[in-house]
């Protein structure tokens, strides 16, 4: 089994789809010679040529809009928005167009576009380059939203996103690109809408996304020293959400923590908490805990950024609170 980094796994899924299918192409800012600002598409220009690995002008609205136009003709474009912070510039195309065409044509028009983007804190990029905005998009009927946390997942989920007949917003986390793991020789598509149990446990369920999956796994390890067995579940697809997997886990453990890097208040975790409490109300032994960034923009200075976004110790503190041990996170 080859070892792939998260970055290489994204590239592998893109390249395989492009080898298999003329209808798949990629476009975005600086993705050709430079291979993208994160190096994800490095080498792809040489293999596929400039028509299928297309550098675009700096026009986020145009990138998504033209991708929608290509998708309407049956192509499967994968467009890249360099930072998810700049999804903001293409929101009309995403929210009012991509998400609505199928509905407003009575199901006759499909828009199978995949919008890849990346973001997140951990390297001090400041308030306009470090946000986690997935909660905005899970709120829009007509979109699918994916947030993968491992090389194998990012590969299998990207493949499925490309071949999904709906517009998919595909989030990658900046700090995960170097993460490596062994993956099967053959790409195994991972169905959208299926959660993954990373670690089984009996005392507390942690539902985590993106970078926080890894922080939660570290916290789960640490929780063992407190005599706690923690289950870590990654929904992987945020929209549609694998509610059953989350509920079943909590029915087993009776306690739940939700963890993401995006701000806690009004966040994706609130939806998870609502789903779990409704379906597993009688099973819950403690209030559901939420872990996320504090409610303020991401500061530029590294030390300050550390204070704002959550880490393993915040998850651990939340886990301990669910069993009545009040230890501060940090």
């Amino acid at each position, binding site marked *: 089994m080859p070892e792939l980094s998260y*970055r290489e796994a994204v590239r592998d899924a893109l390249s395989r789809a492009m080898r298999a299918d003329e209808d798949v192409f990629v476009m975005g*800012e*600086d993705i*050709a*010679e*430079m*291979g*993208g*600002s*994160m*190096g994800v598409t490095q080498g792809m220009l040489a293999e596929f040529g400039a028509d299928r690995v297309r*550098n675009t*002008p*700096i*026009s*986020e*609205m*145009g990138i998504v809009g033209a991708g929608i136009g290509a998708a309407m003709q049956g192509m499967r474009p994968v467009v890249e928005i*360099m930072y998810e*912070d*700049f999804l903001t*510039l293409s929101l009309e195309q995403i929210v009012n167009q991509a998400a609505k065409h199928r509905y407003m044509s009575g199901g006759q028009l499909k828009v199978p576009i995949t919008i890849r983007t990346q973001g997140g804190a*951990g*390297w*001090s*990029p*400041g308030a*306009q*380059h470090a946000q986690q905005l997935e909660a905005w998009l899970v709120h829009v009927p007509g979109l699918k939203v994916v947030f993968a946390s491992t090389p194998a997942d990012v590969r299998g989920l990207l493949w499925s996103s490309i071949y999904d007949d709906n517009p998919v917003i595909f989030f990658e986390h*900046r*700090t*995960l*690109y*170097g993460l490596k793991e062994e993956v099967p020789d053959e790409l195994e598509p991972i169905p959208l809408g299926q959660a993954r149990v990373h670690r089984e446990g009996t005392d507390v369920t942690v539902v985590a996304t993106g970078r926080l999956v890894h922080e939660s796994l570290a916290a789960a390890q640490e929780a063992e020293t407190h005599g706690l067995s923690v289950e870590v579940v990654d929904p992987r697809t945020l929209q549609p959400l694998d509610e059953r997997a989350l509920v079943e886990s909590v029915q087993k453990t009776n306690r739940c923590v939700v963890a993401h890097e995006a701000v806690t*208040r009004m966040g994706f975790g609130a939806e998870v908490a609502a789903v779990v409490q409704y379906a597993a109300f009688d099973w819950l032994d403690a209030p559901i805990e939420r872990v996320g960034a*504090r*409610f*303020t*923009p991401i*500061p*530029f*200075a*590294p*030390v*300050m950024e*550390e*204070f*704002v976004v959550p*880490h*393993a*110790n915040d998850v651990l503190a939340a886990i301990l609170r669910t069993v009545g041990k009040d230890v*501060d*996170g*940090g």
Partner: protein
Amino acid sequence: MAQVLSGGLRRVIGDGEGVPDGRVDGLDDADLLDLYRSLVLLRTYDERSVVYHRQGRIGTYAIFWNHEAMQVGSAHALADEDWIFPSYRESAIGLLRGIPASTLLSWWRGHPAGWWNPADYNVASICVPIATHVPHAAGLAWGKRLRGESAVAITYFGDGATSEGAFHEGANFAAVMRAPLILFCNNNGWAISTPLAAQTRAETLADKAVGYGMPGVRVDGGDVLAVFEATREAVERARAGEGPTFVEAVSYRAAPHATADDPRAYIDLARVEEEKRRECVGRYEGYLRRLGLLSDEEREEIRSGAAALMREGIARAEAEPAPDPSILFEHALASPPPSFAQDLAELRRILGRTEAGGAASPRPSGPEGAGPEGSV
């Protein structure tokens, strides 16, 4: 007066050989030396900042080496009341308005001492999202006109920025409202790895002005005098109520996009070397020397003055005390939401524990995956 070269490019500084030096009306010898002082100040700041970054004292830094003539020439054509809207490439243009070097360096450190009140200097915040500030400048300029004030505004952006909707909407808005605005495009030929030819099919960026119904001029961006003169004309038009002008300053990005970028994968290295040889500060120095306006002693004095100013700036930035974490929440809203006190109390509890010997948060070492773009 500037001569007009092929491609409509205006130029004043000769080459010391076949192309003769021109003069700009209204600039006396002292003014000419002032321009030099500003050029050296920006050059020194930029070179020192790259070192400061390498020392790990500031984050990803957007280098503006060989962009100084565009910034100095245009800023000198403004009055103090005129507003400047910089992009990351003009991060230090505030030096020319009296913002201390330590403030700007602190900005790059993410330290609160790096905040300035734009209204104190008429220099807006540095804009990193591309072209986003163009409509702000249009709006501010329009406001000046509505209030019957004489101030104008200038907004700086790159060649790549002309592909953004915000540029188009801001330019059109300014023209329709006859806002006293100078749209100053630093056409350095590249947007990170994307060359101008992949950004537009227009023969020149100044051609875009036609579509907005405003004049567009092209000027040699390595020629501080030509930039000054073209901007001065645009400022005069704006102040006279004749609306905005688009200035395309043509230069070449001889340095990486930012400290995190390695341009070797995409750039023409021979061209970079050529540009380095004809970089803008040296060109102006040659001009002054041909006119007999710059002695070795004056040159040395100006350079050591700039170096001293930077040393002092760095010392002051380094001496700033660590800020209180309350600033994390304090400035997000005019009146803090109820969560403010809660978040702050929690943070203080954690910090108290950390200071008492607990482990600080784990942090991945270095900006893993930091791409060529870094944060700018």
